[in-house]
């Protein structure tokens, strides 16, 4: 490997990137856009859930219960219903996510100090939202239940009942429950793979398709020089994205970086080189830009997004897919990033992930160099 030739290839590739302002723009703007979206627009937290009310009781007691729902920031009354048919219609048209049904004997039971029940119907299509909505509703009903107990006891001249149990919850690592703390480290891993899918996966295939590969073959450039030279400008671009993402996390979203910045930087570089080489390898093997784009999407971006624990918990996957995730480098990188970011754990606790990433990276660069043949087929 000669440094001069390596440098020449890197310069040529840099010119390709710089001369195409759109590619350059997208590779910086897209990661920023993703960070902004996740930071400001996307959340699974639910509030102002629209619900319809079927109050068969129509008493002061039932109105008191309903006011607990409407007074909570989690629920908004979207209208009244006069039966299950109307509830069905409201849910069908997505006008409401939930229906509260107060039975006809509610007021009588509450006044007489008897136990009673209300019905909550939830649109189960979106299971996550439905679960959260049910949890909110349950909490409100529990409060109402406690008040009912106290009121009845006082009316009978008894001491108010004591809650037998009190649950105290503490959230570690993210005591304010800010989802950005969780998202930012994962997003960094996804963005790096995105750059690989968009940039390096097409670069060698393009040379084959447009015929400039023949010119490269006729030069004294060696395969390894070509591979490494083509990687260098993209590593620089990816590192820029990385720095921007970490900076945005730190100053825009106040995500605490509890671990070492050095560990973070080094491991990101290792992962980045591996991801970009994977893209390059796809490009070398397919030799067609259309094919490379499809393969790259499935091999780089999709697993980083779905099988890495970024959004969906690996523990929830079926066993067979859990095994597959061991081959997804983003999985290790995300564990590492979250560890460094949120738990402040050092290299000692995460050396296994680090070693795996290193192996992945070396393997990808090695395979790219081996598979690249300077020969016309």
């Amino acid at each position, binding site marked *: 490997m000669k440094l001069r030739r390596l440098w020449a290839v890197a310069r040529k590739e840099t010119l390709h990137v710089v001369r195409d302002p759109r590619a350059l723009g997208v590779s910086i703007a897209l990661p920023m856009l993703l960070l902004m979206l996740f930071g400001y627009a996307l959340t699974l937290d639910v509030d102002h859930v629209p619900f319809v009310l079927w109050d068969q009781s129509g008493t002061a007691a039932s109105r008191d219960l309903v006011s607990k729902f409407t007074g909570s920031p989690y629920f908004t009354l979207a209208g009244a219903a006069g039966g299950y048919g109307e509830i069905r219609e409201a849910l069908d048209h997505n006008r409401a996510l939930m229906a509260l049904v107060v039975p006809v004997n509610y007021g009588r039971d509450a006044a007489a100090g008897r136990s009673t029940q209300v019905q909550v119907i939830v649109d*189960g299509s979106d299971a996550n939202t439905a679960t959260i909505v*049910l949890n909110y509703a349950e909490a409100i009903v*529990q409060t109402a*239940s406690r008040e009912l107990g106290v009121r009845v006891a006082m009316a009978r001249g008894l001491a108010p009942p004591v*809650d037998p149990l009190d649950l105290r919850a503490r959230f570690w690592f993210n005591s304010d429950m800010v989802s950005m703390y969780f998202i930012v480290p994962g997003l960094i891993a996804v963005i790096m793979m995105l750059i690989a899918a968009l940039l390096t996966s097409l670069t060698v295939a393009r040379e084959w398709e447009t015929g400039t590969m023949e010119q490269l073959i006729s030069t004294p450039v060696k395969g390894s020089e070509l591979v490494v030279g083509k990687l260098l400008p993209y590593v620089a671009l990816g590192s820029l994205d990385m720095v921007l993402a970490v900076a945005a996390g730190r100053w825009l979203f106040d995500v605490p970086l509890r671990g070492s910045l050095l560990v973070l930087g080094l491991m990101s570089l290792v992962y980045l080189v591996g991801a970009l080489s994977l893209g390059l390898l796809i490009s070398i093997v397919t030799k067609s830009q259309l094919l490379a784009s499809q393969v790259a999407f499935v091999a780089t971006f999709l697993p980083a997004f779905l099988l890495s624990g970024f959004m969906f918990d690996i523990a929830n996957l079926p066993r067979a897919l859990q095994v597959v995730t061991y081959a997804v480098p983003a999985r290790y990188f995300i564990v590492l990033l979250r560890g460094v970011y949120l738990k402040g754990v050092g290299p000692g606790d995460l050396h296994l992930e680090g070693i795996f990433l290193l192996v992945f990276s070396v393997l990808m660069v090695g395979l790219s160099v081996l598979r690249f043949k300077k020969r016309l087929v």
Partner: protein
Amino acid sequence: MFERLRAMLRKEFIQVLRDPRMRAVLVVVPLFQVIIFGYAVNTDVRGVHLGLLDLDNTPASRAFVAAFTGSGYFSATRDLASPAETVALLDRGTVRAVLRLDSGFQRDLDAGRTAHVQLVLDGTDSNTASIVMGYASRIVATYGRSVLVEHAGRTLGAAPPPSLSMASRAWFNPNLDSRFYFLPAVIALLVMVISIILSSMAIVREREIGTMEQIMVSPIGRMEFILGKTLPFALIGFLDTALISVLATFWFRVPFLGSPLVLFVATGLYLMSTLGVGLFISTISRTQQQAMMTAFFFMQPAILLSGFIYPIANMPRPVQWLTFLNPLRYFLVIIRGVFLKGTGFEVLWPQMLGLLVLGLALLGLATTQFRKTSG
């Protein structure tokens, strides 16, 4: 005209299907994605790994712990030897939460005092943590109620304080299986990715490798060229929709309550929009890489701002308005309605109208732009 269009279509099919690897990609990639999506996209919080630290170790504390382990929400519970272990287990992610009962739990319960229970949760994933917290409060409330009833039973003649309870039912998805919600959406997603990427790269490729000039000198007209470049991908879009619908219904057992006709019409309307976007991208790109990057730049926000995973109702108001320009937004409501609720044209017509308007506008924009750039 039809003869020339047929020739053009034949050329396109040959070009796409000539490479055996591309043939494989067109079938294998969607299948692969459905399998991955079908199994991976899952927001159910079940089988949470729970650590148990019972420092009281009395019949009462053990009964309470049994209420947790028997609830079905938690699995693979693990007994901690000492409080110090909490940190290590949560750090390594072995458990999601640790339930801690201090000594005196039974004494407090028996004396009619409030017994304190502590739950330490790994808050890293805040959505999962708050759902786990919800499960725990439900278990605690139910158990607390049974304690009250039992206490009242011990004192002769005393009735337990009245309670208000909640009977809950989830319509359309009684077991709250999130796969039912996501799999129909995967169809929308895949059709978009495939039709936009293929159509946007198809025209640019001719330009990049120089065959565009050969087409220009042939008697093929602009409309025939555009149709030739979109119809094959519309066909692939329909085929993928059918393929994935069958897979979702028969393999993943997602209920399909609506009519295939509604789905077919809606898919056609939806393809108008996605192919319009693909065509437009190809008119403003010079290289395939540019086309692909532009396609991604459109699709990433389109997927995230569609209600696919993140509900639109949770977004800030200006962003919610922006989603009206997103074809995926309308199609998701339609496809989820058709699959899970069995709704038809009478409920879904506003969404279909939205797709029609958007599709006509995008196709119109793309053809005008195409005329300008290729003229």
